[in-house]
């Protein structure tokens, strides 16, 4: 080998080495770039983990966590999009909700908010999320339908979805005179008006109504009024522990003998607290049935069981939170963006088939969904009627 050819060989080797190193570097950089495209999408989860909504909020939080686990694992929102949940507790009060949403928006910089809140707490939260153009998705079971905001979307049932199936069913099954007892808050007053309107349409007479402050522990005066009015059915629009206290007192009072009860706000926790025995002769309108054999419900139940095992709390609240995470993921995937402001518009066309059946906004801010009527006979509960899809009519006429 000549000296020149040896030099050439060394140069070639050096070039090959440089090219090899460069190739490795490019490859590594490419891999790093590919890795860095995995986007974290921050979701603020606000619910009343303490206070009057604690039981349902815990259940809803389970539903959300189970959903996020599946969504992240199967890349539902997009190949590189991973949901990250920032959980805060609004203590079921608007004052705390306001503080927590301020935190979510201005400290945690979340890109969307999923809420399991009452109407006043939601309104308090929107004070911060709406100006920041962050979508707020109410993943609740029921709401008043009083909120109209371009950034707000509700997966909860509103008045006509709650009231109409129940009153229609009762009217067709012998109820002629009803009495309404409601909590003294927005949904109680709105619900009372809607029951009165629907009863009138169905030819049912409303023989009386009363409001009780939230936190009432003695329903003697209502029981007296009900006994005096002699209705065949009492519709309760009471919330949380008040509903439990009412049933425990009303159903153990002999003046309630022969009177049916109907509810459209009763959640699983309240029903469990009251117990089958005291729920005898009660019809409840609910947006979720754990007995549903739909694909969406099977997936929901399996995911919840996989994550929580025996501690899983199957409820409408958990299903609503699950739906919230999924419809958000599906919307991000369809819109191909994680921009908060871009997502706000995209929600109008969002749809998802989950444990509560087919959900769709269809250009509105309130969802159309299915409904079930459950009858309690004192020992068990049975679905007596199903409604495939009911379109929402929010209480606030300004809402789309």
């Amino acid at each position, binding site marked *: 080998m000549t000296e020149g050819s040896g030099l050439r060989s060394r140069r070639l080797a050096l070039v090959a080495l440089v090219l090899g190193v460069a190739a490795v570097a490019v490859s590594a950089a490419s891999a790093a770039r590919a890795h860095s495209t995995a986007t974290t999408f921050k979701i603020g989860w606000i619910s009343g*983990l303490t*206070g009057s909504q604690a039981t349902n909020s815990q259940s809803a939080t389970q539903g959300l966590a189970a959903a996020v686990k599946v969504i992240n694992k199967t890349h539902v929102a997009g190949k590189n999009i991973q949901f990250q949940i920032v959980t805060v507790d609004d203590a079921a009060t608007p004052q705390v909700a306001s503080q927590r949403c301020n935190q979510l928006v201005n400290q945690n910089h979340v890109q969307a908010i999923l809420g399991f809140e009452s109407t006043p707490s939601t309104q308090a939260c929107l004070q911060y999320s709406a100006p920041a153009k962050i979508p707020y998705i109410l993943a609740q079971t029921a709401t008043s339908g009083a909120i109209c905001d371009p950034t707000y979307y509700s997966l909860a049932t509103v008045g006509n979805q709650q009231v109409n199936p129940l009153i229609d069913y009762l009217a067709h099954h012998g109820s002629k005179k009803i009495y309404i007892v409601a909590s003294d808050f927005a949904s109680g007053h709105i619900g009372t008006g809607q029951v009165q309107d629907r009863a009138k349409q169905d030819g049912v007479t409303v023989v009386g109504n009363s*409001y009780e402050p939230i936190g009432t522990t*003695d329903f003697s*005066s209502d029981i007296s009024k009900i*006994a005096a009015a002699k209705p065949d059915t009492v519709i309760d629009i009471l919330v949380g522990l008040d509903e439990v206290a009412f049933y425990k007192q009303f159903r153990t*009072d002999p003046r309630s003998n022969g009177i049916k009860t109907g509810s459209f706000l009763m959640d699983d926790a309240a029903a469990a607290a009251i117990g089958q025995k005291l729920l005898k002769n009660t019809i409840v309108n609910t947006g979720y049935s754990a007995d549903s054999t739909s694909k969406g419900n099977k997936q929901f139940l399996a995911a919840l069981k996989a994550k929580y095992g025996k501690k899983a709390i199957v409820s409408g609240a958990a299903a609503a939170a699950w739906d919230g995470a999924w419809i958000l993921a599906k919307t991000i995937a369809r819109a191909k963006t994680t921009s908060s402001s871009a997502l706000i518009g995209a929600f109008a066309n969002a749809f998802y088939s989950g444990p509560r059946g087919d959900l769709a906004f269809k250009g509105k801010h309130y969802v159309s969904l299915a409904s079930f009527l459950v009858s309690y006979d004192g020992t068990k509960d049975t679905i007596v009627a199903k409604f495939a899809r009911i379109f929402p009519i929010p209480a606030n006429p300004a809402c789309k």
Partner: protein
Amino acid sequence: MSLTLDVLFGVGSLALVVIGLFLIFGLLHVINLAHAGLMAVGVYAQVSFRGHGVPFWPGVLLAALVAGAVGALVELVVIRRLYARPLDTILATWGISLVVIQVITWNYGPGAKFLDLPTVGATTVFGTPYSSYRLLLILIGAAIVAALGVLVRFSGIGLTVRAVMTNEPLARSHGINTIRARQITFIVGAAFAGAAGALLGPIQGIDPNFGATAVATAFLAVLLAGRTLPGLVLACVTIGATQTLFARYVNAVWASAFVIGLAVVLLRIRPEGLAFRRA
């Protein structure tokens, strides 16, 4: 008749809540803001006892003992050091209430708990059927007040209590252990709070804030009662009956506001309380 029974239930259930507060305020001059917390201790203790198969009525007694034990601890650690500073006791008992609620939340979770009624039947009173359990609560409320009246009026313990209430330095100079009297009073007041919680639990929803609503009205009754047992009875009748009747015939939402207004007016007229004292 059912309205009369409703009024009696309003009075009786209020008396159940008030009696412990009254004892502590009357003798110790301590405005015990931990009373709701002690009621919650009672109701959660009852939930636990029922969960372990203890029958309802023994469970009530055990719940009272648990609340009394908590009361003893609170008196020993906090209240005893603040007897000379009544305003500080308000802050201290409020803090204790927060701690108690948080401890309950840790142990039992923030969600609702449930207690079955010991009896779901009805009893006919002068031709009117009425919930047996509510009737029992009326009777228990009346019995506790009557027993307390007999105890205070005719027993040696009652004499000691009255002596300490009337003039503590003089009672001490006569050899009465006033510290022990205060300690026992606080424990008994706490036990009554626990019993009230255990008794009212089956007809109410139960969460860690149990008792908070009822205690607000109970404080009004204690203020109206002054420091005498007849005053307590009059205050419970006035507030319980007014609240029930106002809710029945006018508006349940405004009943509490009306009762507060009435209490303010009555206290303006009779700042020493409702009971008449012998000259």
